[in-house]
């Protein structure tokens, strides 16, 4: 199927006209094919429905989550692409870090199932209405969501695993000759961190 595409000017004016329908929204062009949109989290489903229905935004490229512990917020970014407009729209919303719940957009975009499941696993954000919030990658993990900023992987290892002295004969022989590498726990980076 050969697509006939509107010109860049038509796309720009068309999209800007369309986006006027959602109030309280900031838009900014980050290049000829990148449109950044900041809006309130309640308006996002309306925006997605508008874009999918009226501007051919059928492709949800990704949902990214960014943790901002200082503002006590999660930022969710919906990257949308239209095969007709050839403009990528990045819709940014902020949700409260506690309780960290948002609505699923699975009914509009099926790829959302994977990304929402991933964000739930890595950040602990729950998406209401998502088909499956079960574990996928971290099947045997029962610790805190690891992609949150407060999670320190090295500290977790030090707390949960014992330092084992491994001193076989062959290593002792090498060390007697001045070789070998050993890193004691007190030499590890995170112990020297000033918190």
């Amino acid at each position, binding site marked *: *199927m*050969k*697509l006939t595409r509107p010109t860049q000017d038509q796309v720009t004016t068309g999209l800007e006209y369309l986006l006027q329908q959602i109030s309280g929204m900031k838009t900014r062009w*980050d290049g000829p*094919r*990148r449109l950044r949109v900041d809006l309130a989290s309640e308006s996002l489903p309306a925006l997605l429905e508008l874009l999918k229905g009226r501007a051919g935004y*059928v*492709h*949800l*490229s*990704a949902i*990214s*989550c*960014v*943790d901002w512990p200082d503002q006590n917020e999660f930022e969710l*970014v919906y*990257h949308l692409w239209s*095969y007709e407009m*050839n403009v*990528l729209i*990045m819709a940014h919303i902020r949700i409260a870090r506690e309780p960290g719940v948002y609505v699923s957009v699975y009914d509009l*975009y*099926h*790829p959302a*199932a*994977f*990304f929402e499941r*991933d964000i739930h696993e*890595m950040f602990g954000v729950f998406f209401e209405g998502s088909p499956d919030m079960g574990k*996928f*990658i*971290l*099947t045997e993990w029962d610790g805190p969501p*690891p*992609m949150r900023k407060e*999670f320190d*992987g090295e500290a977790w290892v030090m707390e949960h695993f014992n330092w084992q002295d491994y001193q076989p004969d062959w290593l002792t022989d090498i060390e007697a000759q001045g070789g070998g590498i050993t890193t004691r726990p007190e030499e590890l980076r995170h112990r020297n961190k000033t918190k």
Partner: protein
Amino acid sequence: MRPENYQSFHQPPSHEYELFFGPNHPGIEGNYALRVQLHGDEVLRARADGGYLHRGFEKLMEGRLWIQNIALVPRICVPDPVPMEVCYSLAIEQLGGLEVPERAQWIRVMQLELSRIAAHLFTFGGHAATTGMYTPMFWGIADRDLILDLFEELSGGRVYHIYNIPGGVRRDLPEGYLDRVRKTLEYIESRLPDYDNLMFQNQIFVRRATGTGTMTQQQALEWGVTGPNLRATGLEFDVRRDDPYLVYDQLEFDIPVEEAGDAWARALVRRSELKESLRILRQVVDRLPSIGGPIRAPIPNPLAWNLPAGDVYTRVESSKGELAYYVVSNGGDKPYRVHVRGPSAMHAVQVLENLVTGGRVEDVAQIMFSLDACPPEVDR
């Protein structure tokens, strides 16, 4: 003699059983698993089971300098590592406002297309092997090795090149390199009739692949399919042309499209794409000698390099589909957040689950290879 309390155990008549397909299975690409519910040899349900290759790249990147992460990113997809380096570098360049010199852009395109050919040869082999033909697999791996030789000469690494860095490429082409590229291209082109004879005109392969794992264009769009798999359903879309990066807008190439949407169409699209990559590479090899100048833009001291705060979403067309990086900087010397959107995150999970359901168990491996799924992109 039976004990007094003996009761015969009554099994309800059922032929359903669960099969664990992978993670160590020759029909699975990489360490990945599918839990398949079967009735006889008919697949009733399938659940993808990932995580065997999770190395926490996104978290690791947050703790390393912008430049250090270049050594991490190619490991996200082993068969096709160059798009990872380029996509990450493009993101940093956009954040830091770096202008990549023209020569570096052309060298990058050469790298990307060589990597695409290598990945497609690998996939030909894998796809053929799932139908019981092992010769194309050996051929594919042997021919891919010639491209790896070129990578090795350029960067010192056969698989992980760590060659594209923010601002350009690490070093210039060695003397006579373009001639060796040209020779390799000629050799690969001369091999294509052999592949056609053995694989693409082989009725065993054609009949096995035709009608297997079929999806319509509407389904493909609904499931988030990208790249060659989307083009095999008839949609003519390529990031290289429709959201161009580097110097792709100066190159001439066609976008091969097939209508059927089955495993056969996907194999054909890759076959035609390989030919287009050869065409692109010929143009690059002809143009490169006339493009002089530096191979990378001057960057500040990379060990104390604070990028301005902001976020950027960069996309490239990898051999598997649309590869994207979402990179956030808070003005520090390390990324605040990196999100990798691998094309296989869609293909290996919900698309695969949907396509194998209702099919037969012997087609599961073929469908996975025909989708060219790369599990490390899913797990990251």
